[in-house]
């Protein structure tokens, strides 16, 4: 029981960056724009958060700076794939290269530096619920913020006019265009807004999970998040379940050895990636079985008024 709580507690922590990134991906893809640059954006967020934290010691500044800089970097993706109408896939890959290089270049001198990680703040009353309390409500502030972000993005996408418009951009941009909505504007907004969330996901690494700098600090989690967007069927609430499922896999990776189970650490390292492939396959099969269109119909397609693609 105690072990279970420990694992689940760690799973929420490990799942939180995935959750932020997946939410960001959901928002962007709902508007019809694939973002394969998540890994790069997370690295940018992580780097900026670490640098600001190192210099100011203020978590809030670090978080805002990380989020804003990831937003700015995702503007390049918006510029290239939306304004200049290049392939969203290629542009996203370029974004991953760019972010990886940027964090490698400026992070090089930071290797070995440490910052103070976020402390846990138990929520009174809620944290004393058995199992759920210590798992969900004895976490740091950013985890609580991620709960709010899940609810907020669900509310935004499904309960507001703005969200309806964003989702329409992914389904039928030509209709939106004929209604006088700016396809470019909404899509750009979704890409940058999503990018800001993804940056927060990256910032969670140095601020809470690994409070020291290592090259490639996000270790491919951005790509897992790309898969999670599909696994969550482009829905913010389902993203929660997906992110924590992977959180469990990542938490087990760290803890199985402590339990004395004799598995090569390198096999444990493979676990989350293999699990992602497995889960993605199952999600795709289910998706095909359902026979309904869950994926935004115009995802990845270039919209240009007056031209058929």
């Amino acid at each position, binding site marked *: 029981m105690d072990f279970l709580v420990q694992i689940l507690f760690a799973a929420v922590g490990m799942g939180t960056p995935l959750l932020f990134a997946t939410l960001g991906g959901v928002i962007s893809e709902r508007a019809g724009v694939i973002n*394969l640059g998540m890994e*790069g954006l997370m690295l940018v967020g992580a780097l900026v958060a670490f640098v600001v934290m190192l210099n100011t010691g203020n978590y809030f500044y670090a978080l805002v700076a990380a989020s804003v800089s990831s937003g700015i970097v995702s503007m*390049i993706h918006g*510029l*290239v*794939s939306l304004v*200049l*109408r*290049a*392939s969203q*896939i*290629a*542009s996203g*890959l*370029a*974004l*991953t*290269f*760019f*972010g*990886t*290089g*940027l*964090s*490698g*270049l*400026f992070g*090089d001198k930071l290797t070995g530096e440490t910052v103070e990680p976020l402390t846990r703040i138990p929520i009174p009353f809620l944290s004393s619920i058995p199992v759920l309390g210590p798992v969900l409500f004895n976490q740091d502030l950013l985890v609580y913020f991620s709960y709010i972000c899940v609810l907020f993005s669900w509310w935004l996408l499904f309960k507001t006019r703005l969200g309806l418009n964003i989702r329409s951009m992914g389904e039928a941009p030509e209709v939106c265009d004929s209604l006088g909505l700016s396809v470019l504007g909404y899509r750009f907004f979704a890409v940058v807004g999503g990018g800001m969330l993804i940056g927060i996901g990256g910032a969670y690494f140095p601020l809470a999970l690994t409070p020291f700098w290592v*090259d490639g600090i996000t*270790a*491919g989690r951005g*790509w*897992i998040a*790309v*898969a999670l967007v*599909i696994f969550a069927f482009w829905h913010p609430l389902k993203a929660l379940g997906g992110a924590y499922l992977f959180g469990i896999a990542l938490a087990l990776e760290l803890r199985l050895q402590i339990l004395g189970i004799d598995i*090569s650490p*390198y*096999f444990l*390292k*493979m676990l989350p*990636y*293999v699990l*992602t*492939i497995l889960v*993605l*396959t199952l999600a*795709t*099969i289910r998706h*095909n079985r359902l026979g309904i269109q869950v994926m935004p119909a115009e995802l990845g397609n270039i919209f240009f008024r007056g031209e058929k693609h």
Partner: protein
Amino acid sequence: MQIYLEKRIDTSSWVKFIVLTLALIVIVLISLFCFLAIGIEPIEAYKIIGEEIFLTKYGWQDLLVKMTPLMFTGLAVALAAKMRLWNIGAEGQFHMGTFALTWVALRYDGNLPDEILIIFMFLMAIIGGGLWGSIPGFLKARFGVNEIITSLLLNYVAAAWLDHLLFGAWRDPNTNNFPITKEFSEAAQLPSFGNTSIHAGLIIAFIFVIIISLILWKSKIGYKIRLSGDNPHAARYAGVNIRNLTILVFFISGAIAGLAGFCEVTGIHYRLQQNISIGYGYTGIIVAWLAKNNPLGVIVSAFFMSIVFVSTEVLQIEYGLPISMVYLYQGIILFTVLGSDIFTEYKLRIRQFKA
């Protein structure tokens, strides 16, 4: 006043040339800005890079040495792209190719005739890379799973698998616990040109460019690949088995990436070591994109990206910059080339409104 885009009726190669030149200028300007941002005198840096690469014998050698794996990985990505498939997993296929051939070398080195050993290793690199590549191919063909994500994630799995061996069973006990295997015997080494570091792998790379070009344009299967890429519906009506073709293309693509590993191991390092690919697989994506997926174009773009790699090395030696800077360059290059493409199809027009 309004700025808008007007479709060109046709694109002359003159326009393409101007756009490409402008893109190159933009790339140089952005990297100039990057140098300033990290406090390096840009003109001097360019001068050093230019001298080190083009005016020294070592520079030229290094260009051709780095170009070799890039030709393979670029070719691998380009072949898959001909069928509108994204193989982002060349890095992992490279690694699994080296895994398979190292297995042969460690097991049969000295037990097999010399010529057989290296051919066996060559074939195993093809099989290792090819089978690893078939996994995303199979998942795509059978279930429609997004091949971009699966092929990429398998890179991490392959890297962990090599780490498992290099930090375990395959580690050479005589090398102070470095994650490297023992050196292969001379039978498992490709010949070099004279006393340079350029090795026979470069020739193999050129041969494969020709082979893949011939397959694509002179064979039935190549026709099917191009047809399925250009118009999958037409291909299906014509009786092309797209599923099997997808798996086959991913196998060949992975096999070519595996051969990049073969050339690196048998041509340069003569052993398996950690980080044997310094991102060659990922760079293959850009090589293919710059070549517009044309195998012959891969030769030019592999050379260009090789310049980027060697420049980064020069910067590493002269200024102590990290090698991961190569990714920054690659991002900038890909962004710029992607962003400039539109101007070959459209022209910028400015419209004046009269009051």
